[in-house]
């Protein structure tokens, strides 16, 4: 009897302790990035170009702009494809061959390491175009968004009850109106939530950018050009080992972390399925 109680107590203590310990890396990383990053921050840091090597000062303005441009392009490609395939799988598939193949494609794509998507974009676009380009980066990132948005759209639409659908049919509405206005209207929140989370997710993705948008020390001059991004800047500067560059990498990390975590926290706040 005693032995059993002791065992129970022991497990209780172990699990409590380990759960508490997992809070340590989170707090450590966040505080570390805030403390080391804050010293780099200034208005100049956010709005100006990197200084030439060896000179003090300079900023990461082009990388901030680059990340936003690449993300925006990825959304332009990824969101419509994600939402449309989600609608198709939920409302129009009827067990056809295309839908089975589409489901396999989406399930598999969601498990593919992001660096492979970068290599894919490199082989498909960079090699054919002949130079590094932000378009290839956006393409690689959009492939990350498609499964996330598609699955959430499909699940959101499938929760719409038969009553509502039948009511709409009884009103004589055609199917496409029902799908867009009523079913998608109800599933709207899961589409928006998943789009925001996918946006946050791609904002932190670095591996797909390494061989596609590469990096640039200038302001973005066109979409079909190499482009700086916060993620690649953090990697390059942190790995360079130069004191002043590492400080800039911490500053960039702080901005990136603020962007990604604030989206995640906001979505958690406002989404209904906080568990």
């Amino acid at each position, binding site marked *: 009897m005693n032995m059993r109680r002791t065992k129970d107590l022991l497990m209780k203590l172990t699990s*409590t302790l380990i759960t508490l310990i*997992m809070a340590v890396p989170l707090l*450590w990383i*966040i505080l570390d990035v805030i403390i080391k990053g804050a010293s780099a921050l200034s208005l100049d840091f956010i709005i100006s170009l990197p200084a030439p090597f060896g000179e003090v000062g300079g900023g990461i303005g082009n990388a901030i702009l680059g990340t936003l441009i690449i993300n925006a392009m990825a959304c332009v490609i990824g969101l419509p494809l994600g939402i449309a395939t989600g609608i198709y799988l939920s409302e129009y598939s009827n067990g056809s061959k295309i839908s089975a193949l589409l489901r396999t494609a989406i399930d598999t794509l969601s498990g593919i390491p992001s660096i492979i998507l970068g*290599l894919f974009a490199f082989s498909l676009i960079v090699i054919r175009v002949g130079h590094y380009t932000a378009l290839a980066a956006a393409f690689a990132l959009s492939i990350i968004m498609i499964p996330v948005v598609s699955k959430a759209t499909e699940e959101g639409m499938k929760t719409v009850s038969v009553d509502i659908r039948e009511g709409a049919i009884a009103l004589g509405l055609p199917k496409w109106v029902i799908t867009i206005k009523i079913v998608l209207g109800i599933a709207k929140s899961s589409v928006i939530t998943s789009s925001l989370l996918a946006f946050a997710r791609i904002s932190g993705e*670095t*591996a797909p950018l390494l061989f596609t948008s590469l990096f640039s020390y200038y302001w973005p001059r066109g979409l079909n050009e190499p482009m700086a991004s916060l993620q690649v800047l953090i990697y390059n500067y942190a790995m360079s080992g130069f004191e002043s560059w590492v400080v800039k990498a911490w500053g960039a990390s702080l901005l990136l972390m603020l962007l990604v975590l604030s989206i995640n926290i906001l979505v*958690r706040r406002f989404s209904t399925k906080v568990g």
Partner: protein
Amino acid sequence: MKYKSNFFFEKIFKTILKITSLIVIGIFILLFYSLVERSIPSLFQNGLEILFGTSWDPNFEIFGGAPAILGTLFSSAIALIFALPISLCIAIFYTEYGPVRLRPFISGIMDLLAAIPSVIYGIWGLWTLSPILKINFQEPIIASIGFIPIFSGPAYGLSIFLASLILTIMITPIISSISIDIFSKTPMHLREGMFALGATKWEVIKNVVFPFAKRGVFAATILGLGRALGETMAVTMVIGNSYLWPFKSVSLFASASTITSKIASEFPESVVNLIHNSSLISLALILLIISISINFVAEIISKKSVGG
């Protein structure tokens, strides 16, 4: 008239959906096609060397992938060995022992850990964790039990050990949040039945919750494994990118390579040498095959677990 135009729009709408679906399927097929296409020059020249060869020297066109492949498998396996018990403890605390008031905090911590970009794990591991671990953990261990080969020195701060540790932190949120979901689905009547027989909480967990959740937790573990295998930035920044491990040194504290770190650190310079470039893409193809087979297994198992 109205009916006709509706019919027309219905058709357009359906066609658009079908086209987008075909585009996504096309991307999926192209992905495999272009990776295989780019791998062929290397596979043709190196053959099985890419799987079993132990050295890598682009100048002499020697491309043996074994250290990178083993590095990927080993670092992920270590991460899994740590992450699985930790995740089970978190899930137990969340669903059984811990106060309900703490639940939002725990899931918040897990969500944020999962959301932190891997390049930030990388910079933290490289500049903060690595020096601390080197002085306070690796060096004392090497000094005391360094005669055991896997703990032998010298202490490289950047090592396969550090990579595994960071992977552990990165995949624990994945495994634990799925485990929490599964644990909380344990049928109430089974739990209450055990409690009515006078069982302690731990006995209920061991005899009711674990058997119920077994398959789901396994699937979650495999999902975490898939994530660890493909993780690039954090690993590349902390593993040291050398080909020492495991053929020249078996020490956990030696710097090593993984498939992803090899690709990330060499790819840009490889563009000028077709075989070098193609060999890196062959490694990616091997990684792709590993991670797809793993996800496939997880899928089969989790589908079975729905039944009970």
